[in-house]
């Protein structure tokens, strides 16, 4: 178990100080696939480098299995890293690269050879063991980097955007394979990415970061369905944000009939309401929903679904997604005005952003 306690990192001092990480608190459980997600500059890589020991925190604690590891140099931390650039040693063969960590720790030669063989088989690279690492393709280098980091049996494996250099098809393959390896070994993975799809498909839990702070830590489904704030709602998936007013268990979207929503009891006054495009019902008045109408401005075909850009009578705009399966009978044309339903259970109230400004 890795406990990150009010961890902060500031580069520089005085006016030039840059707060890369502002008092981050989170606990990563054993065997978890934990993802740090955020745009570039959000602090996710800094957090990873602090865990690896490449940077020293300016405040807070890093507690691994009850021991504060913040002062331990990277060469003695039981964590290994898969680097974004792979950082394979170009003058060594695949097997020598994988053996490096074991040899540096003084493992007997016979055990090194056995473990190298085992790990190379795990990543299906044993047939290339004597190839120089510079002579490998991107996907192969990726596998060797993974094998090299796994060989010394780390307590936690850190992965710094390891798939970003691969093309889309290979990336999808490696995503599945990483997930499989992680599950089979029961090893804790801390995975850094800026790709929300990657985060959603692979992770047990995702920590969304922005401006050096954790915005929300949750399972992919919860993160998508119940974003904690506007940033998370906008960063994960597509979303519609509408102005509204809350009070007495009622939510009133501008110009529309009130919706009875439990969450509305907690908030009062002006709020932001979120609804995902796929929850907007186009072309019919569904039960338990706020009803309105919209003019179809644009239809964008995406294969499995179509994005429908709509303008609302009050002046706002809304995006809906309609499935293109055989039994979904709606035929829309641009310029047409259609009835719309916003189901009560799809409406989410986001807290006032001013209180969370970075």
């Amino acid at each position, binding site marked *: 178990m890795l406990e990150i306690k009010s961890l902060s990192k500031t580069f520089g001092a005085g006016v030039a100080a840059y707060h890369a990480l502002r008092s981050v608190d989170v606990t990563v459980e054993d065997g978890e696939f934990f993802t740090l997600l955020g745009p570039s500059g959000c602090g996710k890589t800094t957090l990873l480098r602090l865990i690896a020991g490449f940077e020293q925190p300016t405040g807070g604690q890093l507690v691994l299995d009850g021991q504060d590891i913040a002062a331990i140099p990277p060469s003695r931390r039981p964590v290994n890293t898969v680097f974004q650039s792979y950082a394979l*040693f*170009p003058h060594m063969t695949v097997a020598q690269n994988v053996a490096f960590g074991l040899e540096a720790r003084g493992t007997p030669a016979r055990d090194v050879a056995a473990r190298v063989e085992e790990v190379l088989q795990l990543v299906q690279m044993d047939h290339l063991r004597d190839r120089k690492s510079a002579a490998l393709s991107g996907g192969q280098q990726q596998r060797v980097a993974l094998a*090299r980091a796994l060989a010394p049996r780390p307590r936690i494996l850190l992965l710094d955007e390891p798939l970003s250099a691969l093309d889309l098809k290979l990336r999808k393959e490696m995503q599945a394979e990483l997930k499989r390896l992680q599950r089979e070994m029961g090893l804790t993975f801390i995975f850094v990415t800026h790709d929300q799809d990657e985060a959603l498909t692979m992770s047990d839990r995702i920590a969304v970061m922005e401006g050096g702070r954790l915005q929300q830590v949750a399972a992919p489904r919860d993160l998508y369905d119940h974003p904690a704030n506007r940033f998370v709602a906008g960063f994960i998936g597509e979303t519609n944000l509408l102005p509204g007013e809350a009070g007495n268990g009622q939510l009133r979207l501008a110009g529309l009939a009130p919706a009875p929503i439990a969450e509305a009891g907690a908030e009062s006054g002006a709020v932001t309401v979120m609804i995902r495009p796929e929850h907007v019902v186009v072309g019919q008045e569904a039960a338990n929903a706020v009803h309105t109408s919209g003019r179809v401005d644009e239809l964008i075909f995406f294969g499995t679904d179509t994005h429908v850009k709509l303008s609302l009578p009050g002046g706002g705009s809304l995006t809906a997604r309609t499935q293109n399966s055989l039994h979904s009978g709606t035929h829309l044309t641009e310029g047409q005005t259609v009835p719309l339903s916003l189901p009560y259970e799809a409406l989410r109230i986001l807290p006032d952003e001013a209180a969370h400004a970075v």
Partner: protein
Amino acid sequence: MAERKFSVRHVPGAAPIAIVTFIALYAPIVILIANAFNAGPVIGRWEGFSLRWFASAMQNEAFRNAALNSLIVAMLAALFSTLLAVMAALAITRGRRLKGEGGIFVVLNQPLLVPEIVLAIALMIVLAQIKQATGYHGLAYMIVAHSTFCIPFAFMPIRARLEGMDLTLETAAMDLYAGRFYTFRRVTLPLLAPGILAGFMLAFVVSLDNVVVSSFVKSPGQETLPTYLMGELRRNLSSEIYAISALLLFASVTVVAASWLITRRKP
């Protein structure tokens, strides 16, 4: 509008100038080498191909001593200057940014800035004092003197190699339980090796060719190949000198070409 690249080849007269320059640069050397293989003793009168001047040089003990001295001095001077250059290059490209890095560069490149004759006189004055005080007159003075001006030549390829090296590799080594020394031995040094070898070879050639510093620093009776050639020229212009010059040229070109081939290889 499409950008048109300026090419010096399209300037009128560029080709003739290039040809004249090449002739001026290489004709004397070609003539010298040709004469080294001339059977007759007179320049300009070709009497057939022969290796007799090389053979007679080989039997000349003064030449052999000078050649041996040159090799010893060049080897050791290249070794010491390369060692110092590696340390300097590591200090500059690794770790924290040093204060006054510009000053360090000036000091390192001092031999390129200071006129060689000034350096030679300075070394002579200082080393003469030491010779007098210790009574030792061996080759060590020459080795020390050569080491000083060889440093910048050894330094350049090493620094270039270090700056082109991915720092993440060293970070990765430390992440994989390697301490500082282990990282240096298993990662930094092997990757740096071609730069070190190239630096060593350049320093070796620079030392091998040196005349000015050698003539001022050498003890009486001590000769390196270049100082020996200078002395011989003053006495008699024999074809043996051409043969020795050709050998020296061959040695220099071989080493420089080897060092160029090594640095050209990708890290």
